[in-house]
């Protein structure tokens, strides 16, 4: 693992009681099991204002969320701080968390968003669909390669959420 791994925060968010909406926390759980030295992993139902403080204390922050319509198996892109006009505390946007980290704590960490493709969100069930779980496992592999190379910005620039990552060779 690169030295960068010691400065990375991963926050997976979503509701595990809503099928694939739990992809973010599921990714966080899977990464936590890897016991990557120095890497901070957190999971919650949604992002909130206090996440700004944790974000401000890291150089790289990866937000992991379920994506209902994005590319398969996932997208990975850089995000910039942006203040939304009407966000609620319920669903604070990752870009807004970055903006708060800057405004409140003077921090400008690199921010990235994992959008892991999910398929079922409406049903009340605490389990990922098979396809979503497979996408999540691919995302974990991708994250490990990122940490090994420490090239977050290049990876995100190459793909920027537009090009689906079909297999590891493309990475």
């Amino acid at each position, binding site marked *: 693992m690169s030295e960068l791994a010691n400065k990375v925060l991963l926050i997976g968010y979503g*509701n*595990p*009681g*809503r099928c694939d*909406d739990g992809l973010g*926390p599921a990714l966080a759980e899977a990464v936590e099991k890897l016991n990557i030295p120095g890497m901070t992993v*957190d*999971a*919650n*139902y*949604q992002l*909130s*204002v*206090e996440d*700004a*403080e944790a974000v401000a204390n890291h150089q790289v922050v990866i937000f992991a969320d379920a994506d209902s319509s994005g590319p398969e198996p996932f997208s990975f892109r850089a995000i910039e701080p942006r*203040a*939304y*006009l*009407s*966000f*609620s*505390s*319920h*669903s604070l946007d990752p870009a*807004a968390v970055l*903006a*708060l980290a800057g*405004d*409140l*704590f003077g921090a400008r960490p690199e921010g990235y968003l994992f959008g892991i493709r999910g398929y079922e969100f*409406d049903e*009340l*069930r*605490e389990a990922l669909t098979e396809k979503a779980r497979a996408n999540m496992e691919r995302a974990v592999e991708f994250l490990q390669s990122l940490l090994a190379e420490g090239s977050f910005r290049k990876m995100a620039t190459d793909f920027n959420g537009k090009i689906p990552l079909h297999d590891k060779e493309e990475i």
Partner: protein
Amino acid sequence: MATKGNLKRIAIEPVTRIEGHGKVTLMVDEEGHVKQARMHVVEFRGFERFVQGRPYWEIPVLVQRLCGICPVSHHLAAAKAMDRIVGGENLTPTAEKMRRLMHYGQTFQSHALHFFHLVSPDLLFGFDADPAIRNVIGVAKKFPDLAVQGVMMRKYGQEIIKATAGKKIHGTGAIPGGINKNLSKEERDVFLKDIDQMMNWSVAALKIAKDYTSEHLEKLASFGSFPSNHLSLVRSDGALDLYHGNLRAKDANGKKIFDKVDYSKYLDYIAEEVRPWSYMKFPFIKSLGTETGWYRVGPLARINNCDFIDTPIAEKERKEFMKLGNGKPVNVTMAYHWARMIELLHSAEKIKELLHDKDLQGENLVVKGKRRSEGVGLLEAPRGTLFHHYKVNDDDQVVMANLIVSTTHNNEPMNRAVQKVAEEYLDGKEITEGLLNHVEVAIRAYDPCLSCATHSLGRMPLTIELIDTEGNLLDRKSRD
């Protein structure tokens, strides 16, 4: 599109900076007078069915999936109900105090979040301020110290929840008949280090709410306000108690409608009306009926209903607050914020009191007694009284669940608040930013959690439509 006689409908959809989805429909006549206000929510029911067939001991964990905003409230209410199932409602001192610490931590962080990051923009910049500024980012830029305080208070409460309940996403602290861990001295000392700072910030936040209400009382006295009944739990000696007590209801003049009611008998006193246009039910006091039996819950009702607060600084503030009602309950809707800040301070005082209690390091965590087939658990969640009711069969499976969440209790009052505000700020011909802003402010006073009330999660832009009696779209405005 719906029309009713010569009425036209204005839909405000959904409402921003409240928790979850919201949509407001205003029915106006041809002269532009508001005849009816209806607050709609997008329904996704089914949670009661979701838990059926599951073993009862899983329920305190499962119900946290109801809502990402206040999972701890559902966790504890379900645990209280399951205490009854296992005959373990007389908790050990360690178990009860650990749960209380969890609950006060939850209330502290929830009230702090709501005030600093949802309400303070309205109070600091004014209701009419540009929404581009009137938000938490605006507060962060102009009042950075205040915004940081809000973040740190929220974090403090969340850390207490983590220490008492476990993981944010999967709290397991409360179990039927008790808890699964105590608080170590090391954990306690971390919280003790910052509690005085939390209390000082709470006092300062309370002052902002109090000063704002006092300085703008002439306008706020009528803003979305009306006389109402008030419902809450009250401790057996009349004290404010957010975790446990008996049900008390007062009318708008302060006369008790009922008192000292064992909450397991709530169905004898409270019923829910179904209205065809709304997915969210309308609870009412049975003895008064649907027309006059509706009531408010939450901080305003709790401060109005209790006889005293058992922590000194909050009690002093309660006495000052009650002067607003001149001997009667306070019915000013915007006074919710002041009442909420009294509870914020009370929660900080209770946390400090608990942290100094050696029972938190006790080893006796669980009790069990005679098994029952039915259990009701109530507590005062940050937004108001929360009801959990379950029946369990001999195979330990849940066969019935009934939940009444805080926001559902406030359904009728929120509708009335919107109508009052719309009557004042709608000219019937144009959807203005002013109307939008004021409707939002009125609803936000209740701190509604619509995702919880409707069992759904989601995001919300803001859209308003003005439609005439023929169904033609006259005006439409959206806010992302």
